C-alpha cells in the first residue's frame, strides 16, 4: 500500500489495564485515522484520553492490542514511530535550568524534522529571547514554549495532551492559532481536551471517550448533523453529571 494512502494511525483492540485497581483505563479501542485531519479526543477527566495518547507515543505498554503509526507498530524501541510523532505532554517536560536556545539545540539535535527557523520565528513573536532561562518564565509561557517546540517539528502525527487546559482565553487563542498555522495537509493532529467550545471550530473529526471506551467517533460535521447539536452541546448532554 502507498504510504500516502495508508492510514496514519491504526488501533486494534487496544486496551490498557492499570495494576492499581485492576480496572481498564482503556478497553478494546478500534480506530483508524487518516492524514490531514484535526481530531478532538473528547471526554471528561479520567475517561482515558491521556492513557490513549501515551499508548500511541509508546510511553505506556498496552495490556492488549496494537497501535500502528504509518504501518509501523509502536513499541518501546520503535524509533521510527517516535521520529514521526510530535508529542505535547500535559505537563512541562523541559529542563527548566536550560536557556531557550539550548532547548532548541536539543530538539534540533535529536529530531531530524525539527524546523529551527520556524521555532525561533514563533518564539520571537512571543517575545522570548534565545538566552532567556526557562525557570524565569511563567507556567503559561512555558506551556507555549513547549507547544512551539512540538509544533516546530515536521511530524506526521501531532499528539497534544490538554494543550489548552488551565490557560487564559487569550492564551487559548494563541495556542489554537499556532496549531492551525503549523498544520499541513499530510499530518494529523490529535488533541485531547474537555474544553470543547474553544476548539470545536477547528476540528475536522471528534472522538468521544467515556470510561475508556469510544462512544462516538467520526467526522465532526457528520456527528453534528446526525445528532442535531454542536459537539459542545453533545458533550454536555452525554457527560451530564
Amino acid at each position, binding site marked *: 500500500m502507498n504510504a500516502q494512502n495508508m492510514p496514519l494511525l491504526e488501533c486494534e483492540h487496544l486496551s490498557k489495564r*492499570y*495494576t*492499581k485497581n485492576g480496572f481498564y483505563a482503556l478497553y478494546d479501542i478500534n480506530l483508524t485515522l487518516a492524514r490531514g485531519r484535526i481530531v478532538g479526543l473528547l471526554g471528561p477527566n479520567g475517561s482515558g484520553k491521556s492513557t490513549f495518547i*501515551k499508548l500511541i*507515543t*509508546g*510511553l*505506556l*505498554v498496552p495490556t492488549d492490542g496494537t497501535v500502528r503509526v504509518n504501518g509501523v507498530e509502536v513499541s*518501546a*524501541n520503535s*524509533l*521510527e514511530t*517516535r*521520529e514521526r*510523532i510530535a*508529542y505535547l*505532554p500535559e*505537563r*512541562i*517536560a*523541559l*529542563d527548566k*535550568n536550560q536557556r531557550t536556545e*539550548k532547548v532548541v539545540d*536539543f530538539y534540533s*539535535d*535529536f*529530531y531530524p524534522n525539527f524546523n529551527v527557523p520556524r521555532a525561533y520565528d514563533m518564539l520571537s513573536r512571543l517575545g522570548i529571547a534565545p538566552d532567556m532561562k526557562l525557570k524565569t518564565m511563567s507556567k503559561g509561557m512555558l506551556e507555549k514554549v513547549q507547544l512551539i517546540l512540538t509544533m516546530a517539528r515536521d511530524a506526521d502525527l501531532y499528539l497534544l495532551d490538554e494543550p489548552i487546559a488551565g490557560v487564559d482565553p487569550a492564551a487559548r487563542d494563541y495556542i489554537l492559532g499556532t496549531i492551525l498555522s503549523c498544520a499541513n495537509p499530510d499530518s494529523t493532529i490529535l488533541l485531547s481536551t474537555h474544553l470543547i467550545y474553544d476548539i470545536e471550530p477547528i476540528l475536522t473529526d471528534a472522538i468521544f471517550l467515556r470510561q475508556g471506551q469510544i462512544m462516538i467517533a467520526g467526522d465532526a460535521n457528520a456527528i453534528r448533523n446526525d445528532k442535531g447539536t454542536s459537539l459542545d452541546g453533545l458533550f454536555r448532554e452525554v457527560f451530564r453529571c
Partner: protein
Amino acid sequence: MLKLMKYEIKSVWWLYVTSGALVLAMAGISRLLCLFLTDDPEIMVWRILPYSVSVGLTVFFLLAAFVFANVIPAVRFYQTVLKDQGYLTFTLPVRRSSVYFAKLLTGALGLVFTLLIAAGGVFIAFVGTKAGDVIDGIAEILSIIDLDGIVNGGQIALFIVTVILALLQYLFGTSAVLFCSMCIGQLASGNKLLYSILSYVGISTAASAISSFFSLISQALFIDGLNDNAAVWALDLTSFLQALPPFLITVGCVITANILLKKHLNLE
C-alpha cells in the same frame, strides 16, 4: 548514545567542577596554613587550630565530593527519567537502553573525575607535610604486600579479572543499584519514592549478605596459610570470589532496570 552523554555532561559538569573546586581550594588552604606551623610551642598552639580545622574540612569536602558524585547521577535519573522530564526523554528517537547507559557512563565519568580531584587534593594538602606522614605510612604498609607473589604465584588472569571486576563495580555499582531501585519503585501506584528507598535497602542488604557469605565461605575453604604458592593462589581465588557477587548484582541491576524501562514504564 554519545549525543545523550553530551547533553548529560552539559547538564551536570558544573556540579562536579564546583565540588572539585571546593576540595582543591580547601586543600590549598590547608597547605598554606601548614607553612605557618612552627616548633615554637607558644605560637604553635594558635597556629595549629586553624590548620586542624582546615585539614578536617579538606577531609570532609573529599568525602562529600564522593557522596555527591554518587548522588548526582541518581538525582538526574530520577528527574529526567521517572519524573516530568521523562515524557521528553522517552519520546526522543533513541533506544531506552541508550538513555540508561548514557546516564550510567556519565555517572562513572563523574566518579573518575572526583577520584582525580581527590588525588590532587590529597597531594596538595598532605604530601610532604607532617600529616602526609600518615599517607607515607599507609604507602609503606601497602608496599609490604608481595604483589609479585600474588600475581606470579597465583593466576595472573584471575588477578586481572578480579581487578577489572572491582573497578567496574566501583564505577558503576552504586549508580546501577540506585537506578534499579528507582525503576522498581516507579512500578508502585503511589509512594514511588518510598518504594524506591525500600528497594535500595533491599538490594543493598542482599548484596552485603551475599558478599559476606562468599567471603566467609571462600576464606574458610581456601586460606590456611599464606606461605606457599597454593595459599597465594587461594588468596587470588578468595579475592575473586569476593569481587564476583557485587559485580553480578550490579549486572543484575543493569538488566532489571533496562527490562523495567522497556516493558513496564509507568509515568503518571
